């Protein structure tokens, strides 16, 4: 079905700041027309009561291929993305071998052709992500990388980060920073606080994250380079970024749904699905993250989708790798925790989950505009549902949200004019 018209829905188009009735005409996989106002004739796709948005963009996912295909593959991850309403994802380079050279990037670009959504590789900043020597970012950019990061870990050495940021500036792309100093984090497995003291689990203090956020902001200011702060979890981090934006520095910031819906007290269950880096923080931090989202401190909400196999999560807490999947629950959490509680509205949500990440990565996405690829996400904002294991399309099931009741769900995901996910 390459040619069709979507009518009856509410268009949510941050690029125009438009939230209202409208019609989308799709011809040959591209958007032919975007008409505002109520439709005259009923189109073939009836979106009554639904929201029609530019396809969502998740700029922080781990697709595990090459090397860890037992956790996820580019293809299986794309199915999960489609089920979550994402039409584009950018995948991190902590694969095996890592994406630190043009061949590796080309491999992902090639595999992406079989995926049901657009997949863009993020290359490593340093060789093998070791943080010691710059990787061949120029070659990787030519091969199709859209940004660079050593994500999974922060760049521990400050002069290396400075040079990486300056190099990215030259290439016209953003360096993405996983902000955590390993020495301060001291091999901890959860937030350092009164809870970690009671539970006897090693703590990762918030200053391990905040100190590196402060570093990246100062490097951005000093060198004039752009930097994107990934997965911010703490109140202190929100405050630092707020000040950086006041100074109009080229700093963009991202947070994840788990940082506004879960807190460290839940670790009493020692559930390894709650183990993540940076860790879940206190209720105070959760509130600060929500305020940061409401006040525009954050530019992006991304999932940090991190699949791990069952036998890796069914281990003693210290031995289990950190991370949770998130593609299938990201939008539902935004809808249930933020929009339902009036922290933000749908226009802002789509800006955070589509328009701005597309802009930062400089990929053709995030706008409903004539001439653009027909990547469209249709959402039922009132749909009440309970998330079960059967809803998980990812190869891995490591999520703490099974059994959670949500309000709001993706009902249809359209990539290049083709429906890649439809809720039955």
């Amino acid at each position: 079905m390459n040619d069709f018209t979507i009518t009856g829905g509410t268009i949510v188009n941050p690029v125009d700041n438009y939230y209202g009735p409208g019609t989308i005409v799709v011809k040959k996989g591209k958007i032919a027309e975007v008409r505002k106002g109520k439709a005259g004739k009923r189109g073939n796709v009836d979106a009554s009561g639904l929201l029609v948005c530019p396809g969502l963009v998740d700029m922080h996912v781990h697709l595990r291929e090459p090397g860890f295909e037992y956790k996820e593959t580019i293809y299986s991850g794309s199915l999960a993305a489609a089920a979550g309403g994402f039409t584009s994802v950018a995948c991190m380079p902590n694969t095996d071998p890592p994406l630190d050279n043009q061949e590796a990037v080309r491999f992902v670009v090639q595999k992406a052709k079989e995926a049901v959504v657009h997949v863009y590789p993020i290359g490593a900043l340093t060789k093998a992500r070791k943080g010691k020597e710059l990787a061949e970012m120029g070659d990787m950019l030519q091969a199709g990388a859209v940004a660079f990061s050593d994500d999974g870990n922060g760049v521990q050495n400050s002069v290396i980060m400075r040079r990486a940021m300056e190099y990215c500036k030259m290439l016209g792309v953003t360096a993405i920073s996983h902000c955590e100093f390993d020495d301060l984090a001291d091999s901890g497995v959860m937030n350092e606080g009164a809870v970690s003291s009671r539970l006897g689990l090693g703590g990762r203090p918030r200053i391990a994250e905040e100190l590196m956020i402060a570093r990246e902001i100062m490097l951005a200011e000093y060198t004039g380079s752009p930097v994107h702060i990934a997965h911010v979890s703490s109140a202190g981090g929100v405050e630092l970024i707020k000040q950086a934006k006041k100074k109009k520095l080229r700093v963009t910031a991202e947070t994840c749904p788990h940082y506004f819906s879960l807190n460290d007290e839940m670790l009493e269950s020692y559930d390894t699905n709650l183990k993540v880096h940076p860790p879940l923080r206190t209720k105070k931090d959760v509130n600060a993250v929500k305020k940061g989202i409401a006040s525009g401190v954050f530019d992006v909400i991304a999932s940090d989708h991190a699949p791990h196999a069952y036998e890796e999560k069914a281990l003693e807490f210290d031995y289990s790798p950190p991370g949770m999947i998130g593609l299938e629950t990201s939008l539902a959490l935004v809808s249930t925790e933020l929009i339902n509680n009036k922290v933000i509205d749908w226009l802002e949500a789509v800006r955070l989950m589509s328009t701005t990440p597309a802009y930062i990565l400089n990929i053709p996405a995030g706008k409903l505009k004539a001439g653009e690829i027909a990547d469209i996400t249709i959402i039922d904002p009132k749909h009440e549902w309970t998330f079960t294991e059967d809803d998980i399309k990812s190869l891995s099931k490591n999520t703490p949200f099974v059994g959670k009741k949500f309000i709001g769900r993706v009902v249809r995901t359209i990539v290049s004019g083709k429906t890649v996910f439809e809720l039955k």
Partner: protein
Amino acid sequence: MKLRSQHLLGLEGVSADEINLILDTAVTLKEILSRPIKKVPTLRHITVLNLFYEPSTRTKISFELAEKRLSADSIGFAKASSSVVKGETLLDTVWNIEAMKIDMVVIRHSVSGTPLFLTKNCSSKIINAGDGCHEHPTQGLLDIFTIREKYGKIEGLRVAIVGDIKHSRVARSNIWGLKALGASVAVCAPTTLLPYEVEKMGVDVYTRIEEALEGADVVNVLRLQKERQSAGLLPTLREYSNRFCITTERLKYLNKNFTIMHPGPMNRGVEISSEVADGPFSVILSQVTNGVAVRMAVLYLLSGGVGKIE
């Protein structure tokens, strides 16, 4: 009266009534240890697996003796000579042994939360013999038993716990148990060895030993691991000893009729002087004897049957 949980994972949240039940039971069971035949047939229908993933002398032998005195079948597990060296996971290990029909698992492990993890994935009753830095409930219980044996009560006593509180499961279990029974608890350590926001556990916090000992009835001295120096938490053990070692000279700050305790093994001269450890106010060896009785009590109370009620 019975214990609320079918497992013993820790003393946090355990009520004073339950603790007293365990202690009272231990009093009567202690008598068995001085009989000519140190055995009663009560638990001969129970098989207990002692799953020790961390080395231990005291606790392991204490549990084994407690099990045997109650006529339970006791099977041991030494990590180094097991399939763990072949990479077998904890769950696979337990499931395989459970397939041989066991009733209880006594587990000691270096990762906090592992006993709770087992309760969610296995069918046996679980007794925590020490998990990471989290809890060591039977040690807490035998410490409290020993204090109660001497003073007749716990309420109103002041107990000072001195040592590496940050990494101590013994400290945490003691804090929960003592507070449940109405004692006031002080912790004392160099700042680098205090847990974050430890005062939120309801204890008074000191970094000077004289202040911690002032007005205390009981001092529970914790072992200082030599590795803490190489981990950068302390400059030297010598300096720790200078500032924190429980010496005869420092005993003057304590209340009359004080008590010295130590969970063992001791680093003589580091956290406690030999004089004090072997002196007349030390109950360190009583703690060990009481440990068997307390563990017998725990095994007995958790071993309720599964069939008809009278």
